[in-house]
């Protein structure tokens, strides 16, 4: 939200440029994160990228036309607390379908995903083939709330690397495996 606030007062074109620059920086951050060992910021970075992509990529934004939902992603060991809120985002002169990320758990989410721990979340995110049901089956994650919303969310999440132009994401995944 701080970044979005910093856009206030700028023209639409400049806003777009600033967002794209921010996305480039996020792309680098994500690549570095995946190439590294810790990975504790990966989800947050992906979600931030998702939020910004909705603002600049019309095709991607079509996925969430008039879509409102709140997701909470957390871990049983309490080390992960992230919320993703899909709503209309005010951009000074206009309003767009978008998503806001918070590093706290918000109340009354549509769907909550609870990973066993950070490792389980990383494994899920870097599986190369995100499989909600397999995760549930392996007791790596549990879901409360509407499962269909989670299916949609995972679909949106996995469009991000391609949209960011992270072409060698699979190679990076190989490094983690």
């Amino acid at each position: 939200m701080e970044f979005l606030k910093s856009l206030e007062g700028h023209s639409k074109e400049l806003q777009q440029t600033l967002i794209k620059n921010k996305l480039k920086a996020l792309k680098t951050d994500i690549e570095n994160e995946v190439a590294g060992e810790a990975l504790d910021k990966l989800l947050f970075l992906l979600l931030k990228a998702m939020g910004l992509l909705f603002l600049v990529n019309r095709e991607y934004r079509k996925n969430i036309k008039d879509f409102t939902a709140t997701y909470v992603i957390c871990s049983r060991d309490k080390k992960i607390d992230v919320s993703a809120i899909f709503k209309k985002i005010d951009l000074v002169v206009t309003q767009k379908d978008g998503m806001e990320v918070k590093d706290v758990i918000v109340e009354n989410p549509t769907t909550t995903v609870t990973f066993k721990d950070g490792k389980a979340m990383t494994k899920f995110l870097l599986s190369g083939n995100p499989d909600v049901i397999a995760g549930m089956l392996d007791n790596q994650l549990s879901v409360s709330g509407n499962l269909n919303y989670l299916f949609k969310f995972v679909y949106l999440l996995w469009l991000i690397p391609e949209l960011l132009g992270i072409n060698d994401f699979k190679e990076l995944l190989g490094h983690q495996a």
Partner: protein
Amino acid sequence: MYDKIDEIRDTLQGYTSGNMKERLPLLDTLMERHHGAKAAVDIERARYMTAHLKETEDQNIPMAVRRAQAVGSYLSNRKIYFHDANMLGGATTGKALGAPLYPEFFGLSIWPELGNISTRKENPQFLDKKDADILNFEVFPYWMEKSMSEEVRKVDPHRQALLEKMIIYTVSKAATISHTTPCYELVLQKGINGILEEATQKLAEMGGDGEDGEKTVFYHSVRIAMEGILDYAANIAREATRKAEGEADPDRKKNFQRIADICERVPANPAETFHEAVNSLWICQVAVFAENSNMAINPGRLDQILYPYFIREYESGALSIEDALNISGCLWFKIADNVNLVPEAAEKLFGGAGAVPAVTLGGVDRNGKDAVNELTYLLLKITELLPIRDPNVNARFHPEENPVEYRNEVSRVILTNKAIPAFFNDVENIKTLVNQGETLAHARDYAVIGCVELGSPGRDYSASSSIFMMMYTILYMALHNGRTPVTGEAPLWKATGDPDDFTNFEQFWGAYAEQTRLMAENAVALNNTYGEKHQEFLPTPLLSALFKGPMDKGKDLICGGAVYNSSGVTHIGFPDVCDSLCAIKDLCFNADNTEMRLSLAELVRGVDNNFKGVELLEAYLKNKAPKYGSDHPVAVDISRRLIALGYKVFNEQKNYRGGNYRVAYWTMTNHAGYGSVTGALPSGRRANVPFSSGITPVSQIDTPLTTSLDAVAALNSEQTPGAYALNMKYSPVACSPENADRFGSIVQTYMNNGGQQIQFNIQDYETLKAARDNPDSHPHLLVRVSGYSAYFNTLNDAMKDELIMRSQYNLSSGEFVPL
């Protein structure tokens, strides 16, 4: 009657897989195409249904009518496809091997895979970008709040969440209205026009208020659905005519003309010829898939249903054996034109399954007399010549009524194609159905449903795969004071004691029985909630019209309109849990055991640590503890008690239609999938190893064949009314009359001792290992899994290993062949 059997059997002997190319070139070509077809997702139905339901969202139309309109709209407007030179009109989907998508059930589960389902590792299903976008933007958003599981979550979130833990119980109503056998004879005899007329007459008799109002809605919706079927058939005829006109090849032209002629007459009118009867039945099966998901909707007793049409024409000289083989073979390929759409993880559990439509042959008629006829042998010949995944062919056998020649012919076919059909024992199966309240005549007319389940066709809306009970989890709960591995530290339903609390086996058995009862109650409660949601949102006027009962009562099938209204419950892990209970009794509570004794708490610790550091214990459990499948008295006693317990807890329950829960023991590939994600067991089974399939004793226990068969046959079949799958593996032998007779004799002895069902793989360890290690060397190897057939290469790794591990027996000596 049946005086042509010898003549026809002689003629059929001339057809072998070796001369298919020359003698049945059409079937040979279709076989090649079948094996070459890649599965593809078909979204046409999903689009029509979604569009119609969206349009009528706020129009205050009764749900039954809206559903009928949506189904009718799809049937009336769907594109007509002729994928190949098949002699029958009608196709399940627009793809040669189609996976139809049902968004009202579990279709949205492939949403995360829209971008990669075509290339995923486990059984990819092609989906083009355009269709993926339609699903993403048009279809899926509409169903996000409306799919069955979400409707149920709104009223019972706790039990729905337990379902999603996957290893406690599952309720298949989240994914389907299915597992039943329609009465296609109704259509063959009356035609759809006859059913339409009946609905019109009933409508004219209705008053309009109260119960009559509901009946009016039902009959009105039946009319709409039937008109959809008529439109569909008329459109096939029209398109076939158009194709014929533009076709230069004389054979293809003739085929199109013939399809056009047939579909102009049926299913609208009663069938007159064998070809018409077969095509009429097939179009109705396609129509059922337009309303309900493509899982285990069964053609039924085809040798009985189609016999009058076959024999009349054969005797008149209008139908040759070659024609009948071609038409029947074409039906086989049509039945195999679809697979289920499942997310990749589900492939882990259900991998390799077709749609499992069961065909039933042989057995006795409604008067208890031998029903094996000329067409039985002809369809057995097709089963021999076309070893394909679907249909799931089953041979009923009544040891006192059916001839030995028939028994041996079934045996010969199994030895030839190495997997199908399965054998079903009429004596035990009729007895168990009568015990469930079916009349003797109806029970005698039973057909196999899906994998192995039993039901009177067209009379019992059997929903036979309603509940899957995870016996492993029940045992875990009994050993851990009511906790499960996936629901935290508190007992899920009830604390039934820590291991230290039990001073004798009966106390522990009490805990196991109590956890079984609680799981059954909760699974039933959830299944009934799903059933009520089906009644609210998914009326089935089309399927109802193809049953006996709904049209008389003016009541939909899912509201109790059928003559019988059972539901099925199957169990995963029976053999492994049985062995575990035997081990607990032997090691922890048997004062006479001087070789190895330890407390239950110590045993649980060893099991929970996956036998790390207690390898001696593991070896004892594997090799010396009593095992189900042997004649050890502890094993015999525990296996019978377990079966009695399963029956008792479900016999106390009623489903949402007022019917019984029928207990069964078949596992599809679930035993491998669930075994691969669950912990160790007191039987000595290590963590993440597949469970044994169905009711089959655990593999690689050195027990003679007859002992093993006797142990299964000794189980009380009245307590397994849903039947079970017993999987046996024989070393390959020549298909000589002597071997077929020996094979048949062993089956008959097993049946005489009380066995209900048995199925085979005629494979040795080496062949299966070679197929696993080099899939290209055995591209279409057909195997029996646990109730259905599959291509070995499409199974997941766990299932392949389980098939390899299965105990192999020498047919001649009956001795166990170690791996």
